[in-house]
């Protein structure tokens, strides 16, 4: 039950956070590109609950959920989207580029596929030092059409790099449906042709995701080489705040909303988990979010004079 509750809390934190971000975007407090994770919470919550602090995470531009589930403080994430000095990237990254060295969160990469080679390299360092660690690398099914997907899967399988490839198959890459992106229907099958263990998971079922992540990370830590999980999920909202969603039916969205990962976990947790418990959880989360917004709002901007700081390292001798 504790485990279930933790997963639920994580998913609710992400869901409410994203909803608040949408509002803050409308009110102009968040700018740039904003990609929400609503509907996909089970993936981040399930996978990342299986990682250790010493493991590493690589994410995409749709990175809020990964960051929060990894433990990056919500204050720092929200402040980043406000472009503040207290943001987890000191305001330089914004929504798409969350970073946190303390949590070994290697960022939000906004070039589709661009994080995969980096994940392979992080894992290579672990191999060279003989450390039994896992690098979780998130990317979309759209990214799987990029050349880097191929190069990195081959490299990781060849060198048995301890990477957990997490392909979030939400059926769309912006407006491009899966069938217009990939000639072959089964991504996990394709991935296994590289000589690594790969399978599909119901990405709307957080317990299934967690269980698969457990099996995969165990195998990876034991030296079994990389694994790929195809996490079948769906984004309930538009690709970004600019997307009028011309490419899909409302009915399809509704159908997927019936599979809401939060509702499904709550079902599992009933009747022990009561309406009151739910309300308590929601209000706890809401306090956290309000707090994050308030501190972000109050925080200072980086001084303009510091614009070119961090282009190169500040060498302290």
């Amino acid at each position, binding site marked *: 039950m504790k485990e279930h509750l933790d997963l639920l809390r994580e998913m609710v934190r992400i869901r409410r956070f994203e909803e608040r971000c949408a509002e803050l975007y409308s009110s102009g407090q968040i*700018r740039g590109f904003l990609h929400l994770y609503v509907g996909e919470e089970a993936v981040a919550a399930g996978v990342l609950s299986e990682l250790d602090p010493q493991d590493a995470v690589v994410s995409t531009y749709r990175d809020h959920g990964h960051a929060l589930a990894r433990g990056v403080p919500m204050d720092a994430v929200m402040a980043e989207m406000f472009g503040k000095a207290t943001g987890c990237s000191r305001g330089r*990254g914004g929504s*798409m580029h969350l970073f946190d060295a303390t949590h070994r969160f290697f960022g939000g990469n906004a070039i*589709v596929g661009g994080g995969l080679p980096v994940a392979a390299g992080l894992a290579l360092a672990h191999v060279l030092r003989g450390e039994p660690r896992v690098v979780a690398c998130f990317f979309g099914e759209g990214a799987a059409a*990029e050349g880097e997907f191929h190069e990195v899967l081959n490299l990781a399988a060849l060198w048995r790099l301890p990477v957990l490839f997490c392909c979030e198959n939400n059926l769309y890459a912006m*407006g491009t449906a899966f069938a217009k992106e990939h000639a072959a229907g089964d991504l996990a099958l394709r991935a296994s042709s590289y000589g690594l263990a790969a399978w599909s998971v119901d990405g709307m079922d957080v317990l299934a995701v967690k269980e698969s992540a457990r099996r995969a990370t165990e195998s990876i830590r034991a030296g079994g080489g990389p694994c790929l999980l195809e996490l079948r999920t769906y984004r309930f909202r538009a690709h970004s705040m600019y997307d009028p969603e011309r*490419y899909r039916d409302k009915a399809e969205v509704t159908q997927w909303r019936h599979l809401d990962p939060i509702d499904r976990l709550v079902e599992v947790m009933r009747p022990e988990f009561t309406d009151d418990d739910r309300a308590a959880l929601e209000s706890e989360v809401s306090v956290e979010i309000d707090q994050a917004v308030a501190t972000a709002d109050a925080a200072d901007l980086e001084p303009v004079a510091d*614009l*070119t700081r961090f282009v190169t390292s500040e060498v302290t001798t």
Partner: protein
Amino acid sequence: MKTTYREALREAIRDAMNRDDRVFLMGEDVGSYGGCYAVSLGLLEEFGQERIRDTPLSESAFVGAGIGAALNGMRPIVEIMTVNFSLLALDQILNNAATLLHMSGGQFPVPLVIRMTTGAGRQLAAQHSHSLEGWYAHIPGLRVLAPATLEDARGMLWPALCDPDPVLIFEHNALYNLSGELADDAGPVDITRAAVRRPGKDVTLITYGGSLAKTLAAADDLAAEGIDAEVIDLRTLRPLDADTFLDSVRRTHHAVVVDEGWRSGSLSAEIAARIAEEALYDLDAPVRRVCSAEVPIPYAKHLEEAALPQPGSIAAAAREVVRGG
């Protein structure tokens, strides 16, 4: 007719598709999504999915496919969402599109047009805010265009498609919503010459693309102070029409180059070098460049604004050049 930059681009594509069966548009989300910046909105319905062709997320493959189709009798327009992602296809552009004609001893021209968005200013952060058109302007065999006006948005595509060699068109992301009047019969424009957008006699401000409006704004401010600036829009970044800006500098004796690229090694360096080579004795003061700060463009609004050329910094440079330090 009242229109926008976006609509003018769309009308240019529509017109080209109607004129020539060999023309087709291909790129990520150009079809059912309507184009990442909505340029091709509605064209799928009009021309069908054979000619408005959504591609997978495979920049190298579909740009290379454009090259192959051009080699084989078609006239493809390939859209790369932004110049940032074009690096994934740069090998195809440099080593195939730009090179095949020469390497084959003249046998294989590549009549391909590639359009892409460039530039910063919308808080999209480092990986979505590059201005790398200067790199493309370095490549022999390419023609590189930067429409900064409604006329050019409407008129550059057809001559680009008629060019037997590869042409790249850079659309600055800040321009899509630019609106204004365009003649009903607006059509093809000359894609070989720079344009004097504002005549003046005291200083030559040389720019292109997304910086044109900022530079014109600076010129207005300068006028109020009694400095009469001539503003030149390069339009064609390769091959450069140096005569137009050299003529101007020979008249004004002062030059400022405005370029959203990072300063070191940007196109602005080439302009400044040409002036130093060809018009040295006409200069009454050193050439000044107003460029982006040499920093990955940050997300936060105040930092991004500080990183980019602005009317204020352009006017300040012009003042310095004209009046001295």
